[in-house]
Every structure is written in C-alpha cells, then in structure tokens.
C-alpha cells in the first residue's frame, strides 16, 4: 500500500480543542506511503464522508485512515464510506484521537504529539492490512430441538409455526417432561395436563416437526448453519409403524410390579409399557431390564419363558428387534432444552460430590417423600387417583410437614444455589392438600419466601391467609420415624422456640439439578456449562438464550432452575433467535478469523486445545500420489470467532488472525516506539 489517505477530524471542538488537527494532518502527510492528508470539522458528516470518496477518486488512494473518535463509534461508518469509494472496507482503519487523546489530556502540545503518534501507528498498521471479504455461510434452515419437555415443545412449535422444519429429539419414550407429572400449576392452579397435552398432540401432528422420541443425540459436528447430527434411536422392541397404541400388550404383560418412573416410584407399571395414558407418541417400549424375553434374547437363550405381549398384539407389531438405529440429520441450529432432575437426597451421591441427607431419612422412612412424589399423590392421574394417601399405610395424612430448601442453598451438601421453584410449589402443595383435607394441618419450614413473579406473592399469601398453611421460619434438624408418625425436629427462629411436630407425611422440596449426562452432551455441542452442569448462556443479560457456540441456543431448566413460565418464555426467545438466523439463506460474518499457514504448521495442535469454539480441525496434507505428508491444523471460518488465542499460543507462529496479524501488530509497535 503506497497511497494512503489520512483524514483528521476536529469533531467540532471535541478534538480540536486540545489536539491541533491540522498539525496532525501535516505530520501524517509526511509519512512514507501517505499520499494525501487533510483535516475536517466533522469527518462523520455527509460532507466529511464525501471528502473521503472524493479524495480516493482523485488521488487514487488505496487505503484510508480516519483519525477521529473510537472505532467502536464510527468504524462501520467509515468502512462503508471507503467501500462506497471503491476500496475494500478492511483497508480503512481508525486512529482514536478523541476518547484516547483529546478528551483525557489538557496540554495541547503533548496531546497533539500523542495524536500524531497514534495516527502514525495506525498508518503503519494499515500498510500491512489485506483486503478481506465477509464470510458467507450457507444456512440449513432446519432446527434440532433436544428435549421434549415444555421448553422443547414450545421451541419446536414456535419454530415450526414460523415455517421451518424441526427435528425434536426426546430421550424418554414420550414427550411431556416433568410438566406432565404435575397435578396443578402455580399461581393459577390450572391442571397441568389440561394445558400440556394439547401442545403434545400438536407436536405430534405438526407437518413440520419430526418427532424422534426414545432417542438420544450421539454426536454433533459442524457449525452454525451446518450441523450434522447423529441420533441414536433406541430399540423399543417393536415396529412403530404397525403399533396403533391399543394397549393390549400392556394388559397382557405378567410383569406388573415395576416402579413407575412417571409416578415417581409410587405407582407400578409393566415391562412393556406406555409411561402414561396421554403419552406422545402413544407407542409402548419394552423395558430391557425387566422383560424376561428381552433378557433371554440378550443371554442368547433359544427358548423363552414369556411371549404374552406378542400373542396379545393383533397387528404383529412386537418384533423384539433389539438393534438401536442410527440416523443423521442436517440442521442449521440447535436448541438445547434438556430440563432438570430432582436431587435425590438419599445418601449415595458421592460420585456427584453431593452428600445427601442422612438426617432426613429419605429412602428409609416411607412417609418422607419429595415434591414430585407429592404431585403424583395429588394428581387425578396419579397412583391414588388424586386421593391423598401416604405411602406406608395408605392412610390419609392429617398433618403434613413441608421442608423447603432441601439440597438447595446448602453448600455443605453440595449445592449453594436457590432452586427458585420450591417456594411456589410448596405453597401450591399446601393449598392442594387443604382443598382435599379441609381440617388437615399443613406446616411449612422455610428460610425465606422467594415469590418474585406475576401473581406469585399473592399466591403464597393466599396459602397462608386463606388456606391456613402454617409457615415456620427455620430449617429442620432431623426427621425420625416414631411408631407411625414422622417426628419433625425444627426450630422457629422468629419466636425463638424449638418446634417438634409429629407428621403423618413429610414432603421435601428437593433441589433442582441439571440432567445427568448433560456434561457429555454439552461437550458434543462445544457449549460451556457451570460446575453444577447447567448450560452457560452467552451473556447473562444480553444474550440469555444463546450459548458461547454460534447457532446453539438454550431454553428452560437446563440453563438454571426455571419454572414453567420462564421455560416457555426462554423457549420462545430461542425459537425467535432460530427463526432470525433462518431468515436468510446465507449468513454473513466479519472476516476477522484465524488462518493457518499449512506450509509451516507442524501439527502440534496447541491451537486446537485453546480454541473455545472447536474451530480448529485436523487436515491431512497428501502429495500427488495420495500419500499422507502431514496433518495440519485448519480453521473452520464458520466457527472461528476471532479471538486470536490460537495465534498467541502457536509456537511457530503459523496462525494469523485476519485484521490483527503479526505483521500488523509489529508495524504498530514499531511505529509507536521505533
């Protein structure tokens, strides 16, 4: 570059007051390679920009330096002007002589000298700039949604309704997630299934949603707009196309005593089963752990003890085909909505670094249950058909004690965060209970009530004021079984008295945790997660549903404890992000990405280790005969975000970050200090 134009802005008085802009222009004009230098009152104004265009045309300039404000302010403006003049926009640079000079100095000669320095350094850097073209990436306008709970359902429906295809992958046999297990929902007490099941059916019937239930994401490759997803379709043991969901197989299965996951262990199910009557898809699965025939096949037996379901099926759908199938899907965006699990507070959580609560006897005392189990007891579709009966003897509990913050806000047991939903659902539980057992006693041990949300505080107050829930501020020290009651040993910190209550049933509001296996999924997706396994959002305020990997979004309780309204809101937000991405067939990105010099790359892959985005790939270099010469690093321009950590790490400096190359930085240092 030998014909650079330097344009020095006065910014009215903003620069001109302490920096002699004319002197900066004069000094810059003397620099080798500078063919034109001038100053002007307002470079960013239309006449100012016209000045650049005119000079480029008249002086045949091949590069532009605007000495003015911060590039954060007007770099786009001046690059557009430069492009308008027919010069590659990346051959325009800004020298920041306002924020970094005129505004912070009083001494005019010193400020002017500094402005000259800054401008000179940028001129020298610009000499090493290369013309760059924006990166264009084709976008596959289909989305993958992982997780079929309420967040996944909402995201899938919003994207599909927006006109784009969706692949919805659910790990379990049915979509619906935790919400399908709930009895009523706060703060309106509307029936959970009544609002959820129509949405589930909508998913099933939507022409643009491909539902892959009982499936898991195996691998994800590629980058924004271009993901290749491998999905394992787990064997249900039957031919889904033949099954019409009549339920005969289920009725015929002799294994009837298996604890039902859907009923949180309080109900029973068969070995071939549909998890609940409204399941979507309404197709059974065979539980390999409990089906005698399945176990026989795995063992290689020739004769089988059981074949009842095969006989019962009128359509010959039950095949006992045990092979998982692998399918691949090409998508342009991914929404992660894998939800949560409850902290099971028995003792054996060493592997997770959680200690469990020996003092609460969960798992030993049958009448100590968790919140989800209470939901099933209270639910009309539950094992007791909505009659409140405690597990030990089926008696209707006359006194129920609810403990909040079990597992949550308890660093000693491994979790310091607040699970957010417990205050609300415990209040709901007290109401449900009091509505069913009018003279029953509902006591809540709490630490703080966190009822921030529309109608939430009012809801809790209603539980206390109208429905007679007794709230005691204090944590419970220990639960003991004494005869047929559970003795609750607590303390009322407000009255300063020990409180001992003999309860018929104790309900623990256990913490929300991320799903097991989320770390492995996150690694497949190259998204980051916190130490509790919750997926990290790209920015807690400004990019709440994006992840640090472009094209991958997050919704619902896999990001942090969330209630239903929050999860749905996030899901819709993620869907709108996806639809925004899909609004063009191509994606345009700034070209400031890394580039590997394959001739000198030694293939040590230090760059690959430091890349937070998985943008560095292995590339085989072969000679003409096809023999492998070496393996080198190669940057995927679609994935690279341009941080340049790879370049600083590369010992042989075989990577260059466009726009901030070593020769550019070297020139800038030299110009400052040389």
């Amino acid at each position: 570059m030998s014909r650079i134009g330097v344009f020095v802005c006065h910014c009215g008085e903003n620069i001109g007051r302490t920096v002699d802009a004319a002197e900066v222009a004069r000094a810059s004009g003397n620099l080798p390679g500078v063919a034109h230098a001038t100053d002007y009152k307002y470079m960013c104004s239309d006449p100012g920009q016209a000045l650049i265009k005119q000079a480029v045309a008249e002086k045949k300039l091949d590069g532009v330096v605007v000495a003015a404000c911060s590039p954060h302010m007007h770099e786009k403006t001046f690059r557009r002007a430069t492009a308008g003049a027919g010069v590659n926009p990346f051959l325009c640079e800004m020298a920041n002589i306002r924020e970094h000079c005129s505004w912070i100095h009083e001494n005019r000669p010193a400020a002017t000298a500094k402005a000259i320095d800054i401008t000179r350094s940028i001129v020298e850097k610009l000499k090493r700039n290369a013309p760059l073209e924006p990166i264009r990436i084709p976008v596959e306008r289909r989305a993958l949604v992982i997780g079929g709970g309420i967040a996944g359902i909402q995201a899938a429906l919003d994207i599909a309704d927006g006109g784009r295809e969706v692949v919805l992958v659910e790990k379990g046999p049915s979509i619906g997630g935790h919400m399908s297990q709930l009895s009523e929902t706060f703060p309106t007490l509307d029936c959970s299934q009544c609002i959820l099941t129509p949405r589930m059916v909508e998913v099933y019937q939507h022409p643009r949603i491909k539902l892959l239930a009982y499936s898991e994401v195996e691998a994800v490759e590629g980058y924004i707009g271009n993901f290749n997803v491998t999905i394992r379709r787990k064997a249900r043991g039957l031919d889904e196309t033949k099954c019409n969901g009549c339920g005969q197989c289920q009725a015929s299965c002799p294994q009837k005593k298996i604890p039902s996951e859907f009923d949180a262990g309080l109900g029973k199910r068969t070995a071939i089963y549909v998890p609940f009557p409204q399941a979507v898809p309404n197709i059974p699965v065979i539980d390999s752990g409990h089906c005698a025939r399945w176990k026989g096949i795995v063992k290689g037996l020739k004769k089988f003890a059981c074949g009842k379901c095969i006989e019962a099926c009128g359509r010959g759908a039950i095949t006992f085909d045990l092979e998982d199938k692998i399918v691949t899907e090409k998508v342009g965006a991914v929404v992660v909505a894998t939800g949560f699990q409850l902290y099971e507070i028995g003792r054996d959580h060493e592997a997770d670094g959680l200690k469990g609560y020996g003092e609460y006897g969960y798992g030993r005392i049958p009448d100590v249950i968790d919140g989800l189990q209470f939901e099933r007891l209270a639910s009309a579709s539950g094992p007791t058909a909505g009659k409140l009966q405690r597990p030990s003897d089926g008696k209707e509990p006359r006194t129920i004690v609810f403990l909040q913050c079990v597992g949550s806000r308890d660093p000693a047991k491994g979790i310091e965060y607040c699970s957010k939903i417990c205050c609300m659902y415990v209040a709901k539980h007290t109401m449900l209970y009091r509505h069913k057992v009018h003279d029953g006693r509902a006591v809540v041990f709490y630490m703080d009530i966190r009822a921030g949300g529309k109608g939430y505080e009012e809801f809790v107050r209603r539980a206390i004021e109208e429905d007679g829930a007794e709230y005691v501020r204090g944590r419970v020290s220990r639960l003991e079984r004494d005869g047929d009651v559970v003795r609750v040993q607590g303390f009322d910190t407000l009255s300063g008295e020990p409180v001992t209550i003999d309860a018929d049933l104790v309900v623990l509001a256990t913490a929300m945790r991320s799903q097991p296996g989320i770390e492995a999924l996150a690694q497949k997706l190259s998204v980051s997660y916190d130490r509790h396994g919750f997926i990290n959002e790209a920015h807690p305020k400004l990019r709440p549903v994006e992840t640090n990997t472009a094209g991958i979004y997050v919704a619902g309780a896999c990001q942090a404890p969330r209630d239903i309204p929050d999860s749905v809101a996030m899901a819709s937000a993620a869907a709108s992000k996806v639809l925004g991405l899909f609004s063009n067939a191509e994606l345009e990105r700034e070209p400031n990405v890394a580039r590997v010099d394959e001739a000198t790359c030694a293939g040590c892959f230090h760059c690959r280790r430091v890349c937070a985005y998985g943008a560095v790939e292995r590339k085989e270099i072969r000679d003409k005969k096809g023999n492998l010469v070496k393996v080198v690093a190669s940057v995927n321009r679609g994935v690279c975000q341009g941080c340049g950590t790879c370049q600083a790490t590369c010992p042989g400096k075989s990577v260059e970050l466009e726009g901030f190359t070593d020769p550019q930085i070297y020139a800038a240092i030299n110009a400052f200090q040389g």
Partner: protein
Amino acid sequence: MSEATTSTETTAGTFEPRIQAFVCNWCTYTGADLAGTSRIPMAPNVRIIRLPCTGRIDTLFILKAFERGADGVIVSGCHPNDCHYAAGNFHARRRFAVFRELIDFLGLDPDRITFSWVSASEGKKWSEIVNDTTERIRRMGPFSAYRGLAGRTP
C-alpha cells in the same frame, strides 16, 4: 522519525516514560473509551494497541515493545469470567504468569509491566492504571538496560 516522542524528551527536565499498552477490544479498550467519554484526565504517556482479546496478546509483543524503546508496558483485558471469547483471558493469565516470573529470573524487573483487568465500565480504573504505571516507570527511569543490550556487552 522526527515527530516521535521519545523517552529522552523531557518536560522541565523530568523523564517522560514511553509506555505501550496492549488491550482487548471488548473490555479495556471500551473502558478506556469510557474514561475519555467521562473526560477523566490522565498522563499522556501511554500508547494503546487494540487487540481482540488478551488471548491474542503474545509475550513477543511485550519484548518487542521494550526492544523498540518502551520503558513500560500495560497489558489489560476482561476480568475473569467476562471474556467476550469465553476463556481467552484465562489462557492469557497462565501465559503472563509464567512470562512474568521468567523475565524476573532473567533480571528484567517485572514491575516494568502492569497486568490488569479493566472492564468496559471501569474508566476510572483505567485512568488509575495509566497514571500509576506512568509514575512508577518514571521512578524506575528509562529501560535502557534492556534496549541497550544490542550494543557491545560492557
């Protein structure tokens, strides 16, 4: 280059150090912008080079700056967990930690370099970094010991 301010140039006989800053685009550069917008006066001795991320800041830059005449260097970027690129500053932190102790061992005073985290909202902190570094380097004097190594060994 006649216009260049050099460290031998003096104001009223005092030594004016030349300080090279390498800062990340998202936090410190923006923080320095904020210092400007807030009109916080500071010493005019620092020259900023903008990089996308502290992860991009090579220790070679620092050595080169000293070699070409800088008396001090400022390296600054986003606070931990605030990196625009997720982890660039964490990688940089390890790199600088080793570099600092290494040059210390080689007899180069690591106080010639200020490492700092300055967020986009810490315009005031940036001005303090600039002023404190300038004052410190002024007290330490020109870094001719290193620059001058290119001549004959005494």
